[in-house]
């Protein structure tokens, strides 16, 4: 089956679909921001986007270049300081959905954005935590959007930057973490959700044209498929047009140099 959309497009559209209208969403830059803003233009016009730099209720007409882009401040209902965002809004328990990216994750959706290799003598030094450790615990639910590969989906993390389900089962609940944790991981190949019991990520929806083999080849552990695994609904014409229009307007606004987010 030859599709008329790219794997990145179905990833973004699938992630956008997860954001329910009216949800208070704490948005990471990059893929999460694109998906959240696409959702705002489709089924979730009343989603409230919070960015860690300070804007609350940002409604950017084009995608922001950075987590603290001026367009976020200009279109927000309120712009507060960064400490206030983390103290009153995230830790305050007001965020429904934390929308995160990830450098690496494991089968229990623990995330590593810190180091590959030994912490004190790292092979690769990654950017670090950012807001993720507290987004992943304080937001009521977490969505993760990430390109799937053996580099990103790994058997074992060298550092847990942000807690998913830890060692699985009720390990997360036992820590007293307030938020429920990850509800879905959306990739360019499929959608994975934590198993109810074990909390291990299982493939619940495969994007059109993607084989189970390809998913296995791009996962660093023996990935399971759920019994009722289905095919992801392909992007509708409206979804695709809206996404492409958003990206085109973003490129036009920022110049070709701007296609960063």
């Amino acid at each position, binding site marked *: 089956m030859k599709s008329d959309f790219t794997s990145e497009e179905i990833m973004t559209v699938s992630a956008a679909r997860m954001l329910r209208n009216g949800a208070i969403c704490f948005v990471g830059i990059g893929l999460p921001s694109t998906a959240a803003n696409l959702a705002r233009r489709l089924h979730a016009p009343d989603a409230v986007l919070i960015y860690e730099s300070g804007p609350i209720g940002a409604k950017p007409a084009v995608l922001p270049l950075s987590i*603290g882009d001026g367009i976020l401040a200009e279109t927000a209902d309120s712009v507060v300081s960064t400490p206030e965002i983390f103290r009153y809004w995230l830790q305050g328990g007001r965020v429904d959905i934390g929308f995160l990216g990830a450098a690496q994750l494991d089968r229990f959706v623990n995330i590593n954005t810190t180091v590959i290799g030994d912490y004190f003598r790292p092979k690769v030094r990654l950017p670090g935590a950012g807001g993720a450790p507290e987004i992943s615990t304080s937001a009521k639910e977490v969505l993760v959007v990430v390109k799937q590969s053996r580099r990103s989906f790994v058997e074992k993390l060298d550092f847990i930057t942000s807690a998913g389900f830890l060692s699985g089962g009720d390990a997360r609940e036992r820590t007293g973490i307030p938020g429920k944790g990850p509800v879905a991981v959306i990739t360019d190949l499929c959608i994975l959700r934590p198993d109810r019991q074990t909390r291990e990520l299982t493939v619940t929806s495969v994007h059109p044209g993607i084989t189970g083999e390809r998913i296995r080849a791009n996962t660093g552990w023996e990935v399971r498929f759920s019994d009722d695994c289905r095919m992801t609904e392909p992007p509708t014409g409206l979804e695709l047009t809206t996404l492409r229009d958003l990206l085109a307007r973003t490129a036009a606004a920022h110049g070709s140099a701007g296609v960063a987010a």
Partner: protein
Amino acid sequence: MAQWSLLSEAIAACVHDGDIVALEGFTHLIPFAAGHEIIRQGRRGLALVRMTPDLIYDQMIGAGCAAKLTFSWGGNPGVGSLHRFRDAVENGWPAPLAIEERSHSDLANAYVAGAANLPFAVLRGYVGSSFEQMCPHIRSVTCPFTGERLAATPSIRPDVAIVHAQKADRKGNVLLWGILGVQKEAVLAAKRSIVTVEERVESLDAPANACILPSWVVDAVCLVPQGARPSYAHGYYERDNAFYLRWDAISRQRESFRAWLKEHVLETADFVQYLRVLGSGGRQEAVR
């Protein structure tokens, strides 16, 4: 009371080798000009602090100014890695760089605690992560009422904080708006502070409850138009995103970095000349 100063004089007076120095700005109003001047003056052994070390800290680290970095996210935002930062951490070049790693929430709280003259910050943080095992600066306190255990981290108290803002008035009262980040907290947490501004005005004419740094909490105010380039100044100019993209190539190799630093920073007299060398003359938007 803030003194209107030349940036070079302010850096000379306020920033000393070995100081704890925080240049703040959350993608907005990043004090690039001040960072360059620190490089130009050859400061060494600085303990740098910054939530989001990005290009300016990559440059300072690559230039050899830093011995330590306290941070929560170090990357070229929207582009990728900070190659000079990574080279320092991974290979100790040009000097070993000790790191004190936090989360955004932690560092933001730690600046607040610093501004409030408290020795530590309390947050719901880090639960389930590797931080508590790997980072000795992350400890805990127990609520004396509920028995809950919460993360405790040391407050940030820089020797010097440096921020960029939109305006200051004759007396040195500073106004900033838009994305505020932790700038106010950084200045209030620090022993000394320098603010570079886009504009010197007779009166701030600030709206009610605007973010203002009164003159008497600032040591030096320096008029440095475009001093936040290539980041942006809300109401003045937009982010030069092309530079962020170019930085990836410039910084990837030690030699290309050194050549760039020499030509643009070490051999320029000030930020005006830097901008001229950078050839940004044609790009000065007037979006105000």
